[in-house]
């Protein structure tokens, strides 16, 4: 059973990187990735993750990460940081491990082994992982089947869903790593939930998808054939060319 993890890191690149490394181990399902201690508190309350990877020095604060650990709410905490300057505080608070920056696949694997030893079986049987998104200061939790598509936006992404469009604190690559199977990369800037594709328009050079309730998604020329193939798999009525 996979550990449900929440990543709390203020730097966008570091956050995406850690999500990708955690996903690559195959032992973790990312339950959310947020940038501030405030969002983390809300996400922990809503998701109840097995393990929280938290950066000590979150943007604007001095040692917000330590305060977050002190507040509790998750089964285990790992401090992801550049410098173990709060080691004593952390061990007194029962932090499972330090994950040192720069991160590597090996360090992440060793760290997860320690977390596993500490949290033998996940506290909650793996509930369907939800997508944590933001609208201004409020967090929004979406089931994957509600999601129509993810669109790259200013290094991070936004999610188009039946309830609206929200910001996501992850890059498309990290999202793809987390929800890979259900999503298809149809364009450098777009990931689409195949279940919600309604129409495929145009030819290979300017193909476009109609997804959900009217979101138009461009299909990259070099991906058009593969996307068409995928959409036609498990369908009847259109003859394959």
């Amino acid at each position, binding site marked *: 059973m996979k550990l449900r993890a929440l990543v709390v890191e*203020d730097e966008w*690149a570091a956050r995406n990187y850690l999500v990708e490394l955690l996903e690559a181990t195959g032992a973790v399902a990312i339950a959310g990735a947020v940038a501030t201690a405030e969002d983390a508190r809300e996400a922990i309350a809503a998701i109840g993750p097995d393990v929280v990877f938290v950066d000590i020095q979150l943007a*604007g604060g*001095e040692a917000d990460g330590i305060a977050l650990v002190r507040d509790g709410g998750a089964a285990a905490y790992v401090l992801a940081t550049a*410098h173990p300057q709060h080691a004593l505080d952390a061990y007194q608070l029962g932090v499972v491990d330090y994950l040192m920056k720069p991160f590597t696949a090996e360090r992440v694997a060793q760290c997860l082994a320690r977390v596993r030893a500490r949290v033998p079986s996940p506290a909650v049987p793996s509930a369907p992982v939800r997508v944590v998104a933001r609208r201004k200061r409020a967090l929004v939790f979406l089931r994957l089947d509600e999601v129509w598509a993810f669109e790259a936006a200013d290094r991070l992404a936004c999610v188009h869903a039946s309830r609206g469009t929200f910001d996501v604190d992850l890059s498309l*690559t990290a999202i793809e790593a987390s929800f890979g199977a259900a999503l298809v990369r149809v364009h450098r800037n777009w990931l689409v939930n195949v279940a919600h594709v309604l129409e495929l328009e145009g030819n290979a050079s300017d193909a476009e998808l109609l997804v959900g309730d009217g979101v138009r998604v461009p299909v990259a020329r070099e991906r058009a054939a593969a996307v068409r193939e995928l959409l036609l798999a498990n369908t009847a009525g259109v003859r394959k060319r």
Partner: protein
Amino acid sequence: MSRRGVAIALACGVAGALQAIHSLAYGSLDPRGVAFGIATTAIELVVLSAIYDRRRSLVALGTVALALSVATAFAGASLGKPLPVGVVAQIGLYDGVLALGLWALAVAMPEARARAAELERLHTAAELATLRAHVQPHFLLNTLNTIAALTAEAPDDARELIAALGDLLRDALEDQRETHTLAAEVAWLRRYARIIELRHRVQFRWDVSEACEHVQIPRMLLQPLVENAVKHGALRCRDGGEISVHAQLDGARKLRCIVEDNGPGPQAPRDGALGLELVTRRLALGGHGTFRLERTGDRTRSIVELEAAP
């Protein structure tokens, strides 16, 4: 001994020598001698007060010495045992010179030495702060982590980060003069800013007028202002922080630098305050600039004004 101390001692010596020459040349009763003595003291005062930036304590002391000599002369005359006026005046003048000399030795020179030591200490502290900003383990390791993260997703950004970090490290190893040009300061800040931009959702704007690029400023004077605007301003903005750096000449002699951010504004004392304190102290001790932090609308502005050497 500091340069100012030497100047004071020399000025006193010259004044004393002039008075000795005058005594020999004219004799104590000659009214021209008195006039010469008074003129000597006046010159002494002008020179010394100019050296000491018109310090009130020195002018007051000189005035008292002058008044004392005149008063002694009149007092002597009115007591019925008149000393020759010129002699009394000379006694007063020598008193004045002696007092000035003592003042220089007892007050001005130790003060100047203390100021020099304080400047030296602050210079060292600023150097350390600079070094820390470059190679502070946190800054360095976090930047390395970002580079690792970007190698797959945005290799061009990763290369740019490596170059910027390399430049900062090189700069840290090069000479550490006390001042450099505003252009050099801005070049350094731009590299630092680029690293911040690549790591966070922060955007910098630069508006540095060409006319002030040659102005000499204390090395890394503006760095704490930018770091403060990043840490306590722009990074607290959810939807992307903005920082702008302006520099322009106000008239021919005054340089004004403004670092502005759109963060939620100054909060309770924090570790950034130490950096700002350093800026204030360096400017005050250099004796040629001021620093203030102000909040206008939704912007926080750090403003440094300093005299631009012609």
